[in-house]
């Protein structure tokens, strides 16, 4: 599966379009991480636990999107976009969407 966020796959020709595919995941972190993040909120700096969590979730959203594309018979997803939103206290939604295509 080739994933790109440009309109085409560089160096390859798109032969078929399958439409939009998407993947999303909502994640919350455990209390320990939340507590540490609370402390970090006082002293400032990077919240490593959150960075990891969001990175993992983004990968999962991307995988779900890729799975959906595979079911359609596509071998690439182009024009991928990411979005993050905080749906509730302590939970975040990661969303990935793109266009499933078949390339030569």
């Amino acid at each position, binding site marked *: 599966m080739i994933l790109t966020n*440009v309109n085409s796959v560089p160096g*390859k020709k798109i032969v078929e379009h399958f439409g939009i595919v998407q993947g999303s995941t909502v994640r919350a972190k455990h209390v320990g991480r939340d507590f540490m993040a609370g402390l970090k909120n006082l002293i400032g700096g*990077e919240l490593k636990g*959150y960075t990891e969590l969001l990175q993992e979730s983004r990968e999962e959203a991307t995988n779900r999107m890729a799975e959906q594309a595979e079911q359609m018979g596509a071998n690439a997803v182009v024009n991928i976009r990411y979005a993050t939103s*905080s749906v509730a206290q302590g939970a975040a939604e990661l969303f990935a969407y793109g266009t499933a295509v078949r390339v030569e």
Partner: protein
Amino acid sequence: MADLILQSLDLIIFLSLVILGYISGSMAEKKHYRSIIQREKELLKLPVLTAEGSFRAGLVKESVLVTGSAVISIDYFKRLMAVLRNLFGGRVKAYESLLDRARREAILRMKAEAKSRGAAIVVNMRLETAAIGKNADRKRQLGSVEAVAYGTAVIYNPR
């Protein structure tokens, strides 16, 4: 004396949090900026475009999506300064540096991933920012921000 201390305990806690935030926050920021500038120099050779770019046939071996993200939090002192700034208006420097750090760190991580895959260029880079954590739904103040940078890393054929 003990009574007085007990009475002003709230104030003492508040002041010590402000001082702690000021000292550790500015130290962390300086350290982070030093590391950002150093790594930016190291990765200068890898160009990143926000445009799509076109490649001649046979040049491209592979293209992959690369991402980088960072969640950075503001310290107690700066948060207080930002709340005060809300009263008078004007540039909120505390948040400017917070967002700047988060974005530059995210771009650096994306470039590092692209470099480890042997990419020659990253095209169509996009940046996304979101407020994360407890204060995310509060309009008045911002706790921590997440910046995501993503783009397509293009790997050339060996000549």
